[in-house]
């Protein structure tokens, strides 16, 4: 196995996912089989190849910059409209700091 159930639980914690025990087992099996396919990349020597992080093409230098000016944004009530819990203009979450 390329990935153990223990590793799956650790990654699930990093990903903020609560996996049930049966999900952990299945996940380990699936990830193992995908990682097995991915191992194929080790056949290739990539020494000296620049990693490609983004599709790039010719563009003027300032193409990614927009004018720095004020513009209307979402109102507070619009921004909160889809919140499962809100109050006094804020998103509400379970208590984080204990007294």
């Amino acid at each position, binding site marked *: 196995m390329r990935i153990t159930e223990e590793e799956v639980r650790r990654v699930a914690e990093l*990903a903020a*996912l609560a996996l049930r025990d049966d999900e952990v087992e299945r996940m380990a099996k699936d990830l193992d089989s995908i990682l097995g396919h991915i191992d194929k*990349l080790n056949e290739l020597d990539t020494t000296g*190849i620049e990693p490609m992080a983004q599709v790039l*093409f010719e563009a003027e230098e300032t193409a990614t910059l927009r004018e720095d000016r004020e513009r209307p944004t979402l109102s507070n009530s619009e921004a909160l409209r889809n*919140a*499962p819990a809100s109050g006094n203009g804020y*998103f509400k979450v379970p208590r984080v700091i204990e007294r």
Partner: protein
Amino acid sequence: MKRHTVGSIRQALLHREFSAEEFTREALAHAERENPKTNAYLTFSAVRALAAAEAVDRKIAAGEDPGALAGVPVAVKDVIVTKGLRTTCGSKLLEHYIPPYDATAIIRLEQAGGIIIGKTNCDEFAMGSSNENSAFGPVRNPVALDRVPGGSSGGSAAAVAQGTAVVSLGSDTGGSVRQPASFCGVVGVTPTYGRVSRYGLTAFASSLDHIGPFATTTKDAAALLEAIAGRDEMDATSASAPVPDYAAALNGDVRGLKIGLPREYFEGLASDTGDRVHAAVETLKKLGCEVREISLPHTQYAIAVYYIIATAEASANLARYDGVRYTTRAASSGTLTEMYRETRDQGFGAECKRRIMLGTYVLSAGYYDAYYIKAQKVRALIARDYAEAFEQVDAIVGPVSPFPAFKIGEKVDDPVAMYLSDIYTITGDLAGIPCMSVPCGLTTGGLPVGLQILTSHFSETTMFRVANAYEQAST
């Protein structure tokens, strides 16, 4: 309801054969009536559609140009946000999400007179190749109802194939427009990366995501692309290259065009699919194209590269669904961390979880260089394969999918087999080049096959010219 095109609707409106409002009412009623057969739509948007139709009618009455898409019923994949209109991304997590803004593509298609009649079903967060990963049930292929329509933009492809929308919008990250187009027998286009603004396209893998059109003809797909393409200051990766007049390029003349057949694209093809694609290549030869074999040697590594890069980006993009901002929070009285984890566990389907997990794993300490950086380097090699090929040829053609539409349920238990079926579409996304699927006949079992056409960055005009010439010659 009679089959219409963008052009036939425009003519009928300008000759006052019907008003946009009458036509929209009829289109909405037809789509709602037909939907139970396929489950292509998740939401209908009668109020918004009729308001848009009235605007078109007012312009016509005033003698103004009603726009290139005047009165055209458009279906929109439910990963593209629409202000005030539910946008679920095919996920239980967003079942009740009402976006506070419109995607740029939505604004532009309505400015061109297009009428959004509904939002279409898709794999959850566009992750899938069969539309079976939707939280709202699979879509059935209108050509064969026991089969998948492909994915992830299955609903948008099915809507056009079923005739309930004249054109539609989908999104393509690894083949999610072209593969369902090929399965449903319609045209599907993935434009150059950056050609269409991604503002308002729910992010899956940001360096790979594209919005792209579906239609029954290349001409209509090109008209929709032209309406939505171009620089948008809300998306820093959108390209400032001018948008050509695509219709003017559809002159049917492909004499002397050099077409490359990648030998790697013809290995492991179902024989029926291979036969149809080879027949299409013969047609292109008869039209005067010069066909030669080429090689894209890194094709075999594309799936591995894709499932590292796409899942890594997805794991970051899907972090925002945390139970705080987007409608759904698990009923848990625990801590903040437990709330995040329970919300995500209950909200995401199995495929999303698998990809979030894989993406988190390949980005985690100790694996980042071995997986993520390695994948980015091989991505560069795949892009270089295409760049070198386009020094020899004007366009590349091949299959879209190794096989036609499969039965619902047939492949759900083997994620790797499902991933491998994207082999011919993923490479185009990794390189960011324009590519499309155009129908090229049926298998002996009566299932549609798609011909894929790929060109170099921003050469959509050449791609459309080849597709249109082929359509003219084959119908």
